[in-house]
């Protein structure tokens, strides 16, 4: 089976054009593809659309908030567009308040369901989340079995950046605990999926088919994270800033 292992993060992101739409996985540090983000920051692509849980964070060594601070993002689809603490106003907030960058905010369940719809050939779906709120103001609603639902459409992406624990060379993936989060859904939803691997890349045949979390058919490029210097996290060796 095809060997999808690349040796460098820079090589993995080299072809990403300006204007690309990128899903970025992770929920807090677990599953955050900080090495891929670091490489994308170095690579220079701009005018990006990012689909991620929250786009304002600069807390990891390389995070989407850094791309935002560098003015390389034109739009973010997310479930958090402002810090819960107004005192911690971010560049993300400044740019969205000034209109330099657009943020489309939605319920987290809607965010992931829109990704899944894109993955699954579902044209649109009805959810109750956000009904009666300002987020649903210009959206189509429908009463089904006496309850009001709002119509939501798929979120497609050119690329998904995700992080997993183990991969085989074909890209079958296993995640460690809550590293999983959005990542399997993004892998299915994006045209091209890039994965940074925290643990080992093993030979094809070494993973129990019953316990593959993301089948390799959804994965395009896998890159092993170089050995970490120290600390709780596997830090990116090439993360910058």
């Amino acid at each position, binding site marked *: 089976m095809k060997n999808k292992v690349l040796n460098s993060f820079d090589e993995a992101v080299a072809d990403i054009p300006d204007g690309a739409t990128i899903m970025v996985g992770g*929920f*807090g*540090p*677990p*599953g955050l593809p900080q090495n891929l983000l670091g490489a994308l920051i170095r690579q220079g692509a701009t005018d990006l659309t990012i689909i991620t849980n*929250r786009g304002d964070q600069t807390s990891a060594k390389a995070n989407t908030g850094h791309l935002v601070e560098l003015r390389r993002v034109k739009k973010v689809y997310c*479930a*958090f*567009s*402002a*810090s*819960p603490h*107004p005192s911690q106003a971010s560049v*993300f*907030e400044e740019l*969205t*308040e000034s209109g330099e960058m657009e*943020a489309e*905010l*939605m*319920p*987290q*369940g*809607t965010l*992931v*369901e829109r*990704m*899944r719809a894109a993955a699954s050939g579902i044209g649109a779906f009805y*959810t*109750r*989340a*956000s*009904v*009666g*709120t*300002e*987020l649903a103001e210009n959206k189509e609603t429908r009463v089904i079995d006496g309850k009001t639902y709002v119509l939501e459409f798929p979120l497609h992406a050119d690329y998904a950046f995700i992080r997993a*624990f183990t991969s085989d060379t074909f890209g079958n993936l296993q*995640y*460690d*605990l*809550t*590293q*999983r*989060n*959005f*990542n*399997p*859904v993004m892998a299915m939803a994006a045209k091209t999926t890039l994965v940074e691997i925290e643990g080992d890349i093993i030979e094809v045949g070494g993973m129990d088919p019953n316990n593959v*979390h993301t089948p390799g058919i959804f994965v395009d490029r896998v890159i092993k994270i170089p050995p970490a210097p120290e600390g*709780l*996290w*596997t830090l990116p060796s090439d993360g910058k800033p």
Partner: protein
Amino acid sequence: MTTSEKKPLDRQTMCSRLAMEFEDGWIANLGAGMPTLCSNYDFKDKDIIYQSENGLIGYGPLAKEGEEIPNLVNAGVQYVTLRPGSAIVHHADSFTVIRGGYVNVTVLGSYEVAENGDFANWKTPGRKGGGIGGAMDLAVGAQRVWIAMEHVTRDGKPRLLKRCALPVTAVGVVQRVVTDLGLFDVTPEGFLMREIAPGYTPEEVQAATEAKLIISPDLKPLKVT
């Protein structure tokens, strides 16, 4: 009712008061911040299954410092522990749990709750952005939506309102609110004050409340047992 020890309830007492009513086997989702204190309550023989948006089902207490498991956080990005019997699902399946009605109770923080059951917890005045997270899904999906919040803002303005002034998170979903001044059920007639912080009078609580309170004929001092 005596005013001898008049003191607003502390946050742990507020959350414990809600947690007291969790039933054995319930699946609970605790919002980030104050609501997580519910898990400190001594449930004795009752088994509560904590679920968080990032796909973690059945987690245990916060990890001790130095004993964190790197890839194990709850929805508030706190390092937690695994209990036997826990399971991990991806985010779409996690919201199947949430929107699909499997969560028996969610306890959320809020800025405002209205007497019609609306609440507002994602956006503060004058800001374009906000933080929704899983709250809108939990609000429509969980079997019970309970709120834990201070009775008034830092500026002393009421948070129990006739109608929410801030953009709402969901419409007509809140069933119960605990504040530092008491325990309130949302009824078709409005807020029913069932329990009151020891030392306070109903009139004092009403004075700190915009909505008209219905005082339970069985009004009792709020107490954690």
